[in-house]
């Protein structure tokens, strides 16, 4: 029989969480994008765009994310117990929003009524927000509970939604003004995402965080800025300027921006998700010895 080896040091400092794997990450990845897309689809519908395909895509994304989670939880056949704690649990609230998303979405598709489209968008936005709050409430993961994480997670959801709208724009919005508007909106959201990302990273570094989190997030910092935000921003500018390949630029920009967001969220939920670890504000006094200075192993920044 093989017995796994555990080094004591690994169990003192923060360690990477292993309870939420790619399936849980997928919920944040797909669900956030889906929710954001629904919000922007609703927004676009105000200008008369036919967003039915977008609604389907948004719901599919959310559905896919939730399905992944369903496969991850220990007792899937008890999944409905998730609705028992609306008073404080953002997971309950996320789950509670989902039926409204799907209900209004289906009604929107079936009736074509703008009200339902709008409600779907609102619930989609709520879904994004609830997800961000789930992470924020997880005190065991310093990288998530940081107060600048919540706006970032929400922002990337919306940026991804807008970016997917940009992908669809050449097919849904024939007039240039509309395309420019979408591209501009996406651009603004990417800009906000970048600001919040930098702000978040700066916050973690200055206030201190598990070294593992800092390392994982720092590792994606450059590429995320360059390829996840700058590159799509340039492509969106191309779209805004209305050059001949504007349509293709929008599609590419949207896909790259979404990929960037997904990469960030996967990193956040998996690779940068280090636990709090343990810390001693005082070391014990042994006999007539002295106490030592406090320690917080495995933490960096600050």
């Amino acid at each position, binding site marked *: 029989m093989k*017995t796994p*080896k*555990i080094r*004591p040091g690994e169990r003192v400092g923060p360690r990477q969480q292993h309870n939420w794997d790619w399936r849980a990450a997928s919920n944040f990845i797909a669900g956030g994008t889906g929710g954001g897309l629904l919000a922007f689809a609703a927004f676009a519908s105000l200008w008369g765009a036919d967003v039915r395909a977008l609604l389907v895509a948004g719901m599919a994304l959310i559905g896919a994310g939730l399905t992944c989670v369903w496969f991850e939880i220990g007792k899937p056949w008890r999944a409905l117990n998730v609705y028992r704690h609306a008073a404080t649990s953002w997971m309950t609230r996320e789950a509670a929003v989902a039926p409204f998303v799907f209900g209004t979405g289906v009604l929107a598709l079936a009736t074509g009524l703008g009200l339902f489209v709008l409600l779907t968008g609102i619930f989609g936005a709520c879904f994004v927000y609830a997800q961000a709050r789930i992470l924020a409430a997880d005190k065991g993961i310093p990288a998530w509970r940081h107060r600048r994480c919540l706006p970032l997670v929400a922002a990337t959801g919306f940026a991804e939604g807008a970016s997917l709208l940009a992908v669809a724009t050449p097919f849904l919005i024939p007039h240039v003004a509309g395309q420019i508007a979408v591209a501009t909106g996406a651009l603004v959201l990417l800009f906000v995402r970048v600001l919040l990302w930098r702000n978040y990273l700066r916050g973690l570094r200055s206030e201190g965080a598990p070294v593992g989190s800092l390392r994982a997030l720092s590792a994606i910092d450059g590429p995320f800025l360059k390829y996840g935000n700058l590159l799509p921003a340039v492509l969106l500018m191309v779209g805004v300027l209305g050059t001949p390949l504007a349509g293709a630029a929008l599609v590419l920009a949207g896909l790259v921006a979404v990929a960037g967001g997904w990469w960030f969220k996967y990193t956040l939920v998996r690779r940068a998700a280090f636990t709090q670890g343990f810390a001693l504000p005082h070391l014990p006094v*042994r*006999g007539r*010895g002295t106490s030592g200075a406090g320690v917080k192993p495995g933490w960096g920044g600050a």
Partner: protein
Amino acid sequence: MSSAANPQSVRKVPTYCYNCVAGPDFMNVKVVDGVATEIEPNFAAEDIHPARGRVCVKAYGLVQKTYNPHRVLQPMKRTNPKKGRNEDPGFVPISWDEALDLVSAKLTSVRAKGLVDDSGLPRVAATFGHGGTPGMYMGSLPAFLAAWGPIDYSFGSGQGVKCVHSEHLYGEFWHRGFTVAADTPLARYVISIGSNVEASGGPCAVTRHAEARVRGYKRVQVEPHLSVTGACSAEWVPIRPKTDPAFMFALIHVLVCEQGLDKLDVPFLRDRSSSPYLVGPDGLYLRDAATAKPLLWDEKSGRAVPFDTEGAVPAVAGRFRVEGAISVDADDARQQFDVAEGVTAYTKLVEHMRKYTPEWAESICDVPAATIRRIANEYLENASIGETIEIDGQTLPLRPVAVTLGKSVNNGWGAFECCWARTLLATLVGALENPGGTLGTTVRLNRPHDNRLLSVKAGEDGFMAQYFNPTDKEHWVAKPTGRNIHRTLVPIVGNTAWSQALGPTQLAWMFQREVPEDWNMPMPTLPDVWFIYRTNPAISFWDTRTLVEEIAKFPFTVSFAYTLDETNWMADLLLPEATDLESLQMIKVGGTKFVEQFWEHRGVVLRQPAVEPQGDTRDFTWISTQLAKRTGLLEAYNNALNRGAGGGAPLKAENYDYSLDASKEHGVEEIWDAVCRASSASLSEGREVHDLEWFKEHGFYTVPMSKTEWYLSPTLEKQGLRYEMPYQERLLRIGRELGNRLHEHQMHWWDEQLSEYMALPEWHDVPGRWTQQIKNAGGKPEDFPLWLLATKSMQYHTGGNASIALMREVAQNVRGHTGVIMNAKTAKSLGIADGDRVEIRSHIGATYGDAVLAQGVRPDTLVILGQFDHWATPVAKDFGMPSLNTIAPMSMELTDATGSGSDIVRVAVRKVERKEAAV
């Protein structure tokens, strides 16, 4: 739901754990519907047991030990006649009848040939594991062994190199301390040199030291790595390995040369030590010509008088002119002095220690002189000389300072010096065997084992009587009676029941391979039959790869087996015993005992079957009775039981008689019922008699004992005896005699060891002996730049529990249980990262493990916890752990005069690929 949620029956069965030498400790086994499920403390013993009825982590593995699927559950016979590590033994199950027939036929044929062979060595040998603990599980086997006659216990499983060997011998010699401890409950200052008492002292030591920490004592831990004990100390002094004597000499220097006699406990030195004895120009005591009694200088009469002169006031220090004295050297060679200068032993000491300054020690020990000086002065200051304490109505000196020594400090070269220095440090401040000070725990080389105070008898020269192996021409044992030749080579080890196992046990193994060139004694032979129980020398001794080859040569090995292991892989017969939670036995508890069991009670405790024996395992008492019956020794066996060989009191005494009919075979319960009754009757002096049923319910029986029995000095005072400190005239003489005997037989292979017999120990390059040994073996010392040490793990220490999954799991929470500990900077310089697979190579071989990087270890030192590197023991064989034992040589050069070696080896370390490391 589990059936445990709705059990039909739940019982709590009181019993004991004695898996390590720090026991016994009391516990309960929770049994749910006949299945043992939990181990719990026995709170009924909270006010009696020094650890308040608690057991350590090891005991919690006993449930898994019982139900371990890898257990041997029926007798097994070897079918492959070839023996070797790569030979599958081909064990096949047989019945108990067949198994017992096999072994008794063998034994009967041995008896027919004679109990000893042509070399004068016993034909039957036995090896039991650590520190007498197997005796606490072997039921009535001791009665069978006693009935048998001579048995060779020479083949050690680590005795001498894994214990505190020199302390056993010299501790018992100087102050009846087979092991030595601090009087922790009263101590204010403890210098702990390599003693890992928080890991190996069991719950009693842990409890006592925890209390002392909270009370505010100071413990200074002097050792190359930051052990658990170091961690729990007020200060860590990372000393260079094997330089402890130099450190201690410098402490003594500060006391006697810098502070001086006025600051020391003069009355104690004057009356309880041999400090006033006058030493003549030949380095021997000046003695009274008529009586040969050592002389001292009487300040009252102003002349030299025999030490026991009534009313004399001895001078502790000084040089005096003595007329008409004699000295007595080895072989009673007497010298007459018309006029001689007599120097008190104390003054000799002061002059001797002058050169050992802290500054001198600094470069040797890698400890700043200021630190050494401060520690010495703190020690002296805390000794509070003059203070007293009242214990049970008796006023005794309170000297709350102690020095304790650990494994590797306490065995091999340098250990004699450390033991001497430690005992002397206590003597100088009057802390030897006084409240708060340095105390012996128990005796094993003297008798009785359960009360060391009773072992004190007046002997020669005003000291305690000692029972050395003879070195005089007439009585010296020129023809060894055991394979480690303890009676021939080691006078101080004596010749009682424990002596043989405390002889130079590695010699028994080494001489099977090769004897020295000038060996002029009968050639060592292999025993016809070898019994092994709770022992695995193929893992726990040294140079284990070679040792396995020796074990494979034994013609008939009988293993009382729990699982397969590396030693019984070579066995011919496996006899599975009902183990800890399945069998019946009573043992004595209480009094004072290693490691820090200081009780205020004496008594007995029962181990009883909490659950039915698994498979076809049998109670050891049943096995023993069957062996006795089938070898025709039933009567002698029963008589041995009647004498008390089973563990408790003799079955017959003045005020009771529960003796067994010697001619009949008795059942297990019948035997122990008699022991229960006799023990309770004996303890209560006939007031209370409790049978087995009573003990099954209550678990133990004790009577109160005064705490004053913890201290030996009052007994010496009562008998007017002195500690043989500081001057070792007797040892010097005996060493010379031993040399004479060996040389008369043209044997010089023990000459280096003879150099250890000194009146006042000198520093010699102790660590240098290891590099010299490499040179002599044809290696280059610079190829092995690091020290490798082994240290103890509470989770595994003598637990025989390497196959217990729970221990593996919880032990990994403690640093070092996943590989070899090395200094992070050293590792970096060698390109080794935490968790890397490394090869640790000595000049005799390599062992492999994962690097565990730490700051709490000297840059020149590696440390391995416990002893692993298993290849047959289930579970453990998959650990991938390194072991010092694999690569430590057995070597005459590294064997000291007591026959012990130090658990340390010079090594090199390098990173290797995982597949390269697969042995």
